[in-house]
């Protein structure tokens, strides 16, 4: 199955070495954006080339690779990237989080807690958390160097002043190791707490912007907030319609023309594992007028067996 | 004979010449070689015809004009300070704590009320706003300035009213040295009398006063000594 026309994992060994060197630098300075010589990949920019280059630089024959896109293994981006690596490395791939040694992800962190023998690789569109506030790269480099992050808090203040609350729902800025301000990539803020003191190594790659950064294992990661407007994750009034989970990030799917909604785990593997273990959800679509009214939770089995 | 201990203000060979560069360097000699010694409790009246340099001398004493030659020294917080040579912040300190000045014309900070103008010298000495305003009110009352004028800026007042604000402003802080430039020029008889009483009271408290009084009656009532500036007109 491996395509012998390409070097192992597509990139030449020199390039992999350069990227690994950049990764070492990134690991040594948690949250600091390290510039790297981003290569042309057989994907267009915006399709995860940064994440792919990182994976390609560290993947080995004994690795087991999982690729997810918005939590699912079966969406276009994930399927393509998984196939790419299968073709250029012959490495075993899996959809089960527990089995994987390398997990490349677009915009979600798996629900299942990771272990010290796993590496999570994020695809990042815009690595600079200050980019919308300070367009000058020169200036943001200075701000990171001098730890001048008042501007980010100004933005959060402004949110509260104009909208009553910090309304950022994804790509919520964090302080890594209490030193660098970092963009966690467009993961929902629901996932932010998972980055904190994670036993797994977390690597972030932005191919188009040519920067990578890292959070070494067991590093403090704190989401920005105000003392009287503390950080809060999203919550749903519904459980997963398929497995009944109340703890996972739910996707909202519209299933008919009347606007009925189905709430389903975004992490497809997590949902499947729960169903295999016997959990069952309400399997009911929520009608629009109900969705807007009182909460619908099928509690019974789920909460007791969730442990 | 007054002892050196009471000496409050003195000048040594003080001279003043204006050089008008806009007029090709034309020099106007005002006075030269003035030696003054003013003691606590004295009121020295400067005399001489108009244009003889009385006002200029007073301004030199205040530090408003620089000295072309010689020196002006004042007793300030137990030390002698040369006003001609002092740094600006030291001159300000002397003016704040030791020297009061009633100028001929009222130069006002626009839009500040009369009460606050008069209270200002006390505020600069650290007195609370409330107390300073209360004392300012007393002074204005004494000078027969009607209460309805107190919250107005004095820019639209009559000459006599402005003069009285000036006097209150210059005298309220009970400075050890007081410089008065025609304090009664625009006042009617009643108010002149009030000012004379105020000056006499200051003298009684040990204030050293140098003043220009064009009104003979006033001069006779307050001055202990006269000093003719006119004789120092020509350059040495």
């Amino acid at each position, binding site marked *: 199955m491996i395509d012998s026309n390409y070097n192992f994992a597509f990139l030449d060994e020199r390039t992999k070495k350069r990227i690994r060197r950049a990764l070492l630098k990134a690991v040594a300075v948690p949250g600091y954006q390290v510039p790297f010589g981003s290569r042309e990949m057989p994907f267009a920019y915006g399709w995860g080339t940064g994440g792919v280059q990182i994976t390609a630089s560290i993947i080995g024959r004994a690795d087991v690779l999982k690729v997810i896109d918005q939590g699912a293994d079966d969406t276009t981006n994930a399927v393509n990237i998984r196939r790419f690596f299968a073709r250029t490395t012959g490495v075993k791939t899996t959809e089960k989080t527990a089995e994987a040694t390398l997990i490349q992800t677009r915009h979600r962190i798996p629900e299942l807690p990771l272990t010290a023998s796993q590496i999570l690789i994020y695809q990042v569109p815009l690595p600079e958390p200050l980019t919308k506030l300070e367009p000058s790269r020169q200036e943001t480099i200075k701000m990171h160097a001098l730890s001048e992050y*008042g501007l980010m*808090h*100004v933005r959060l*203040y402004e949110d509260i002043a104009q909208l009553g609350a910090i309304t950022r729902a994804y790509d919520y800025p964090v302080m890594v190791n209490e030193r660098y301000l970092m963009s966690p990539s467009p993961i929902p803020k629901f996932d932010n707490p998972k980055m904190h003191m994670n036993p797994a190594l977390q690597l972030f790659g932005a191919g188009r912007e040519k920067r990578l950064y890292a959070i070494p294992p067991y590093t403090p990661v704190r989401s920005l907030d105000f*003392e009287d407007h503390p950080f809060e994750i999203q919550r749903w009034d519904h459980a997963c319609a398929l497995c009944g989970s109340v703890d996972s990030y739910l996707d909202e799917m519209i299933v008919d023309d009347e606007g009925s909604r189905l709430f389903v785990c975004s992490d497809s593997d997590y949902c499947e594992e729960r169903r295999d273990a016997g959990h069952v959800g309400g399997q009911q679509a929520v009608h629009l007028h109900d969705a807007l009214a009182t909460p619908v939770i099928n509690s019974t089995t789920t909460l007791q067996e969730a442990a | 004979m007054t002892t050196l201990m009471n000496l409050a203000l003195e000048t040594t060979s003080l001279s003043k010449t204006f050089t008008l*560069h*806009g007029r090709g360097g034309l020099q106007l000699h005002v006075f030269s070689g003035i030696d003054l010694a003013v003691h606590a409790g004295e009121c020295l009246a400067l005399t001489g015809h108009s244009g003889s340099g009385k006002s200029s001398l007073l301004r030199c004493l205040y530090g408003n004009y*620089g000295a072309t030659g010689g020196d002006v020294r004042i007793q300030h917080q137990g030390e002698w300070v040369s006003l001609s040579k002092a740094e*600006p912040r030291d001159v300000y300190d002397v003016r704040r704590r030791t020297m009061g000045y009633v100028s001929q014309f009222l130069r006002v900070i626009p839009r500040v009320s009369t009460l606050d103008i008069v209270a200002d010298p006390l505020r600069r000495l650290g007195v609370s706003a409330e107390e300073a305003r209360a004392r300012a009110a007393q002074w204005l009352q004494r000078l027969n300035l009607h209460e309805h004028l107190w919250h107005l800026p004095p820019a639209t007042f009559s000459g006599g009213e402005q003069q009285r604000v000036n006097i209150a402003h210059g005298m309220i802080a009970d400075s050890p040295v007081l410089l008065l430039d025609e304090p009664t020029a625009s006042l009617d008889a009643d108010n002149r009398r009030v000012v004379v009483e105020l000056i006499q009271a200051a003298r009684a408290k040990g204030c050293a006063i140098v003043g220009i009084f064009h009104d003979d009656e006033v001069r006779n009532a307050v001055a202990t000594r006269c000093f003719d500036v006119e004789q120092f007109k020509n350059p040495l």
Partner: protein
Amino acid sequence: MKSQVLLSARQVGKSFVHQGQPRWACRGVSFDLYPGEVLAVVGESGSGKSTLLRLLAARHACDEGSVHYDVQTESGNEPTGLVNLAGMSEARLRWLARTDWGFVEQHARDGLRMNVSGGANIGERLMALGARHYENLRGEAIAWMQRVELDTGRIDDLPATYSGGMQQRLQIARNLVTHPRLVFMDEPTTGLDVSVQARLLDLLRELVDELQLAAVVVTHDLAVARLLAQRMLVMKDGCVVEQGLTDRLLDDPQHPYTQLLVSSVLTP
């Protein structure tokens, strides 16, 4: 009368090259500024006064001479003595500019963040210093808006919706929120309507007095100098031609140029 010098300029100069020759925008300027003193730098356009201000505020490097500032320790309790600004790290200079210094620009737009609200503008320095309580920040912003006589109902409005005079007041509040000891002002009232200028000057005078601010105020308007400053520097062609007590310079000017300036002022 013994107190520490706050800001010391020693033979400060800046040159640029014009048609192959060095030309001095500003040269040989020396003075010592003490806490609570206001120094006006007066001159016509081309005199070098704005360049001087920027040298003092370390926005340009000196080509000659040096500028020294009495930097306090981080805890703010002991003065460490005069430190040469040229020897300070950029991080320290930026920190200084955000805490112990203020800089009021001639055009408020240059000194404000136009895309965040008035309240955010005022709170920014505090947030940069670690303030993390939203209601407290808001409280500070409201208090300062009252102090500079801005309508507190406009706290969430963008500065672009404020009038020119209001923008200047906002700029002042934004600078004073960290209680700086030294404020640089570049023509703070120029360009505003006369009545607005007058009220702003009153405000500045009161604030300087109340907060015991030291300030260096660049202005071409002698009336502003008389109103705000105890000391004055008169500049022409990059040099200081006369300096001293403001009222003495204005009432008894010695230098030909100072005499010319004073006699040129129109009084209605």
